[in-house]
């Protein structure tokens, strides 16, 4: 598929401070591309440059082969859904959605047709004459998205639009947004600090840290094969160990835990996901390393329950996911249990 957006060597400086450093990426047409990073990593700055509210210090932003240099926001084929939604409080729902179309000097029947069609798409039929202040959080969300989508943008930019919603509604909107994007086929660029939002919705995710892209990958790869220590620590949960020494075959942590892993170079840190650990492994096959741990406490959290353990013969603490099934129901604090892990799931950097 063709690339709809190309960001080439883009940097943005505020005085001496580099908010965005030499970022490169492409977005495929019809894709759902997320930029994931903690607050202050430069993701909003990058989005605002694509929208045209900020100008890149270096580099170029190309939409459908056309450079966006010097083109103001109102002339760019992109629309943005703001974090605060920025609905116009003095207008009702249909006036909000019609605002952009009116600027294009379209005829009244045409505007009305497109507004009604779009409100239908986002499930807001019958809300045309409601004041935006009378709507619930989720409905306001949909008005904001409808207002941008009705413009038929090449790319829809979303700046953490789910941030203000409560948890239940956010879970619901995640799925809804993904379905909506699939249905209409517009390219979405979504920025968020919430990894679960990014993982659930995106085709591709870029992890951003201190103004740079650490990795651009599919959600599965990002989770399975993080390329840098930052990504390993940022995406998903991980146990982190500082490494003391390594000889190419065995890793030794600072607290003296030794575990076999074929590796290259001299890594500093080891990451192990709690859910990658296997309790009572049936076979200690070729690549499965086994060791025993003692349970310190059981951190019950429904499907997210974890065991807090100490690796025997060392002081290293290790969190292990505990499946909620009958097999492990009788585990007690102080028990010793065998644990296995595949060598590929030992990530060292």
């Amino acid at each position, binding site marked *: 598929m063709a690339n709809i957006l190309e960001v080439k060597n883009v940097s943005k400086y505020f005085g001496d401070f580099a908010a965005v450093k030499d970022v490169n990426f492409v977005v495929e047409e019809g894709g759902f591309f997320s930029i994931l990073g903690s607050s202050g990593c430069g993701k909003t700055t990058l989005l605002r440059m694509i929208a045209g509210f900020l100008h890149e210090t270096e580099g170029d932003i190309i939409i459908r082969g056309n450079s966006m240099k010097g083109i103001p926001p109102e002339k760019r084929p992109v629309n*943005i859904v703001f974090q*605060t939604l*920025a609905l116009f409080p*003095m207008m009702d729902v249909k006036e909000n959605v019609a605002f*952009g179309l009116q600027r294009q000097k379209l005829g009244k029947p045409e505007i009305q047709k497109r507004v009604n069609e779009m409100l239908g798409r986002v499930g807001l039929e019958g809300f045309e004459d409601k004041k935006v202040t009378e709507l619930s959080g989720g409905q306001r969300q949909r008005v904001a998205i409808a207002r*941008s989508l009705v413009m038929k943008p090449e790319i829809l930019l979303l700046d953490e639009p789910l941030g203000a919603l409560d948890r239940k509604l956010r879970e619901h909107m995640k799925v809804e947004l993904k379905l909506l994007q699939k249905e209409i086929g517009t390219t979405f660029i979504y920025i968020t600090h919430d990894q679960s939002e990014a993982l659930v919705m995106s085709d591709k995710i870029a992890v951003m840290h201190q103004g740079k892209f650490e990795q651009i990958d599919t959600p599965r790869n990002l989770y399975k094969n993080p390329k840098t220590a930052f990504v390993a620590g940022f995406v998903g949960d991980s146990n982190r160990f500082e490494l003391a020494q390594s000889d190419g075959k065995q890793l030794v942590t600072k607290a003296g835990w030794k575990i076999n892993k074929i590796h290259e170079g001299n890594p500093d840190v080891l990451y192990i996901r709690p859910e990658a650990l296997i309790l009572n492994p049936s076979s200690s096959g070729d690549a499965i390393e086994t060791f025993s741990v003692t349970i310190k406490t059981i951190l019950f959290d429904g499907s997210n329950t974890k065991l807090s353990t100490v690796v025997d013969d060392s002081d290293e603490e290790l969190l292990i996911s505990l499946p909620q099934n009958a097999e492990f129901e009788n585990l007690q604090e102080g028990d010793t249990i065998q644990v296995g892990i595949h060598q590929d799931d030992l990530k060292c950097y």
Partner: protein
Amino acid sequence: MSVENKKGFNVTFYLLIVPVLLWLVILIVLPHIDLFISSFQVENDAGEKVFSFDNYLAFFRQKIYWLTFVKTAAYAIGVTILAFVITFPIAFYLTKVTSKKNASFLVLLLLIPLWVGELVTVYGWMVLLGDHGIINHFLMTLGIIDKPLNLLYTNLSMVIGLLYMSMLFMVVPVMSTLESLDDSLIEAASDLGASKFTIFRRIIIPYAMPGIVSGAIIVFMLVIGDYLAPNILGGKSSLWFTEQIYNEFLQTFNWNEGAAFGFLLLMLSSGIIWLALKLSGQKLEKVGS
């Protein structure tokens, strides 16, 4: 417990409400009732007060009275509109363009004329606008004019004076509404293809409307009831309705006529404000808050 609490609440409630009621009744309601009654009284030949519509009829019989009345209303509306046109960019600059620190310093500067009182600022304008005043002196020195311009004691000087003393009361409420305007509303409008003019007309002005209307009401009331600026800066040529009222009370000592004029002015200003609220689609409660 609950009984005591309720009692305690009641005492506090009455303590708070009594001064308000006293203020309203003694200083506002009673004098107006007295004025209202006396506006319907005339003295007969025996010196007794009798009921009559003469005071109000006199207003319509004398052309000069209602001409002044209409002129006062028209000029007050004009000054209010001018005050909006001049101060809206200032309020916008102070809230949305400059930094918070700069803004608070500039607001302090704006308030300086209020510190010296209206009389002093009015005399200040006389110094500026007089035949041998600063502006004429400056223009003549530059050779732009060879005879002093007649600036003082005109409608122009009166409007300048009225504007100067009332303008600030437009800035403050407009600033307070603009402060709550989320910048992303402006960005969103621009993102949807709106020009600067459209953003101004469709987003900023409607958003600031409650502040604009409440500022306009204050400015209009101050201007229509002002006496100093029309009297001193306007001179003989500019008639202002408050001057008519003043004349009835203190020059011809016809208090009944003066009371009638006072009521006419009250009805005029209330009527215009009611109309303005209707036209702008604002509610008094919203504007007042």
